[in-house]
């Protein structure tokens, strides 16, 4: 099952289905046959174009992070809220006490989408912005010293790692081989 899902055909089907759902959500017309037919046609066309452009892989159909990512997002929302308060306080305080830092953390994620998720999470939490991502390093600009908490950020990274490996334990080994080569 999993094997099928991460094959091209599986991804194609998953993507088409997901696009059809998006179509329905956008359209809101369930009773117009022409629109439904167009919806199916459009979803298939888009999925085919994705395949044709050569980007039908784990990034465009991120199955490997699928169930776990929602819990992660929930957690992330809270984090975003917390760090927002810190930045907001800085903005409103009459005398700003900024002490910007450049720090660097390791991104241990295997897949590209994992790394991107990690870097984006860092950027999404105000106070830290990932400035550069290269190989396994993420360069971060942090607004204050408190926010430049490497261990907290790497904790986030571990969470992303865990999300990544929930569905495909085999992905890890595969990717490691790839990384080693």
């Amino acid at each position, binding site marked *: 099952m999993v094997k099928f899902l991460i094959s091209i055909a599986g991804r194609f089907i998953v*993507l088409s289905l997901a696009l059809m759902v*998006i179509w329905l959500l956008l359209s809101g017309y369930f009773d117009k046959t022409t629109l439904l037919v167009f*919806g199916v046609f459009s979803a298939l066309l888009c999925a085919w174009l*994705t395949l044709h*452009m050569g980007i039908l892989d784990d*990034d465009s159909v991120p199955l490997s992070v699928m169930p776990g990512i929602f819990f992660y997002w929930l957690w992330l929302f809270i984090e975003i809220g917390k760090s927002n308060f810190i930045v907001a306080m800085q903005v409103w305080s009459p005398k700003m006490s900024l002490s910007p830092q450049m720090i660097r953390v390791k991104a241990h994620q295997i897949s590209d989408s994992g790394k991107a998720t990690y870097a984006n999470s860092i950027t999404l939490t105000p106070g830290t912005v990932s400035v550069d991502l290269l190989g396994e390093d993420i360069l971060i600009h942090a607004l204050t010293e408190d926010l430049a908490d490497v261990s907290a950020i790497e904790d986030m990274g571990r969470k992303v790692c865990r999300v990544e490996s929930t569905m495909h334990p085999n992905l890890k080994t595969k990717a490691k081989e790839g990384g080693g080569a």
Partner: protein
Amino acid sequence: MMGHLILRVVIKLLFAPILLFGLYVQFHGDYGPGGGFQAGVIFASAFILFALGFGIKETQKRLPPTVLPFFMVFGLLLYALTGVLGLFMGGNFLDYYVLAPDSHHNAGQHIGILLVEFGVGVAVFSAMMTIFYFFAGREPEIHDADW
């Protein structure tokens, strides 16, 4: 391995939904805002985004510039020939009623508008891509330092 991983990942992720959004706008022009013109632009913008992320060479490999004139011609001709079809079926130029003369739901109009809007969409998409390819696919010529 290519650089700018974050960008590439997000572009990959958003490529198909943007295309779908374009088609949604195309086919829902009858019901909400939008239509062929906007749809063509949105559809092209997905490819432009791809080109920004993956390089114009890579994009041109997948969507060669040589096919774009065909799309352009197809779009414009689809529009014009829908009109000519009206001409041949006994109506005036661009008369859609004659496309389905016995309908009570103005089906001829619907078919006509659908065809015409599709022509607009294809033509606009390919025209935008052509313009983008020719502008972006060129080396900068003046290397002046004064930004």
